């Protein structure tokens, strides 16, 4: 990790000499540690807690929703997100990133607060469905947004590949929800 930071610094210094603003140049070396840049790390560190919370929220659906369509949607999203989360964790391990959630306790876009999750867990029927649908839309939109940043500014091929797949999948799912 340290190596990538040093490289990022050098890259930043080199980038400053140009007259016009320019995107982050790719790092010149390619050791395993330096393959992940700051955006890769931040994207992994954000997507993992987002998906973990989302899976927890979806897990309420079988007991709390009475609408078969909502239950079916939750089941589909659960399967897709479990696979996605496993891929994210594998990348995090490869990047040797800390496993602790740096954003825990903070209100983050696309996520619910712990209090909101606890409140949702107590809702039943249409009241539950309404909050769940809103959160599904929020989650899909925000995860697609940050994945677009990872596609544009990320560096590690595995990250960019997964971000591309997530962005496509979540954008399509959000569109299907209307």
């Amino acid at each position, binding site marked *: *990790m*340290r190596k990538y*930071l*040093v490289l*990022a*610094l050098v890259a*930043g*210094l080199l*980038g*400053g000499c140009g007259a016009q*603003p320019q*995107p*982050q140049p790719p790092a010149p070396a390619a050791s395993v540690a330096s393959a992940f*840049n*700051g*955006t890769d*790390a*931040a*994207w992994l560190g*954000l997507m993992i807690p987002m998906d973990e919370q989302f899976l927890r929220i979806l897990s309420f659906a079988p007991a709390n929703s009475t609408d078969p369509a909502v239950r079916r949607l939750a089941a589909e999203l659960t399967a897709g997100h479990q696979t996605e989360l496993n891929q994210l964790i594998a990348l995090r391990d490869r990047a040797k*990133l*800390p496993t*602790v*959630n*740096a*954003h*825990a*306790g*903070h*209100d*983050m*876009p696309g996520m619910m*607060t*712990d209090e909101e999750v606890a409140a949702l867990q107590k809702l039943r029927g249409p009241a539950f469905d309404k909050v769940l649908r809103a959160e599904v839309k929020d989650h899909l939109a*925000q995860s697609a*947004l*940050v994945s677009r*940043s*990872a596609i*544009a*500014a990320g560096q590690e091929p595995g990250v960019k590949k997964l971000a591309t797949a997530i962005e496509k999948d979540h954008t399509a799912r959000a569109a299907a929800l209307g």
Partner: protein
Amino acid sequence: MRKALLTVLAVLGAYLVTSGPAQAAETLLSQNRPALASSTENAGTPAAAAVDGNNGTRWASSFADNQWLRIDLGSTQSFNRVLLRWEAAYARGFQIQTSNDGNGWTTVHTTTNGTGGEQNLTVSGSGRYVRVFVTERATQYGASLWEFQVYGGTGGPIVRVAEFLADCAYTHRLPDDPIVFPNMPGASHMHSFFGATVTNANTTVDDLANSPTSCNPSVDRSSYWVPTFYSNNQPVEPTGTTFYYLGEGVRDDVIARIQPLPYGLRIVAGNAKATGPNDNTISRWSCLHAGDAGAGHDFITCPAGSMLESYLDFPQCWNGRDLDSPDHKSHMAYPVNGDCPSTHPVPVPKLRQVLRYPVNGSTAGFRLASGGGFTMHGDFFNAWPVDEMARRVNDCIRPIIKCGADGHP
């Protein structure tokens, strides 16, 4: 006890700075102070004759270059004017120098083509000792002064607090964080930015170096940001926005070896993982001019006429190596028992962020973009020019002198 006193002084200093003390009358600091010279021509031309206020008596050196006359001001003083009344045996080249110990000297003025007579010099310096050092005589005789006078502008001794500051008004809001979410616009909760006006998700230190700034002094191109404060879901921006750079927190001998904050350093301070008021031990809330309202890690109910204020101290020990770290914290550490730990051996100035929000009364409608008051945190991206930071560390922090936004006492 000393540390507690310094803390109190720093807080008092913060109030004084806000109220903007008027410039007091000029004071002659040097009259009848102990004077010492490298040499005297004879018993009738002693060093003391140059500080006696009498234009009929004078100091004269032996007939050589590199002679000096030194005044002991008794304690460290800041001064802004020096008056020299030369006798016919004047100096073509000389320097005005200061020292806190009478051994190591800092040159604050140099003349190389002096013409004698009365020389009124605007200089800026501080120190217990002030001397005129004659590098080149104008005549075959020595150097001779009827009077050597040193004037201070504030009429009092300097405040013994290691401090300089920048006042940086609110500039803009964005759901961006170039430290935590580099090149990821919209990835964060809402932040309120201070200082550099260009900061967004893609900002690098070079962008900051070329940015306009809201800071006084305008040489500070750094970027500072915090989660946006909301009152009943309306954003409220602080109207008091002072960023102090302090020596306090470590022993005086550690302060004496504080290093400048490295250019491009990034720090996140405050407990990002706070899930309750007791998790965040660094950030604290209080009420301006209403200390009896208390202080705590969550919002405080401030009395009418007061303002809610947030204090946040950044860590002041650097690992000497990294400008950032994966968690944006572990390259920095807080001191232990007045010194920096061996893992983070380099003492740097402590950034103390003081924000004053124009709100008071019930805290029921208050929240931060990140959550409760206990989630307060601050991000700092250092873009002070290297020489400006170094000068302030050298002039204000290490010698323990309270400086203003201009980096002078």
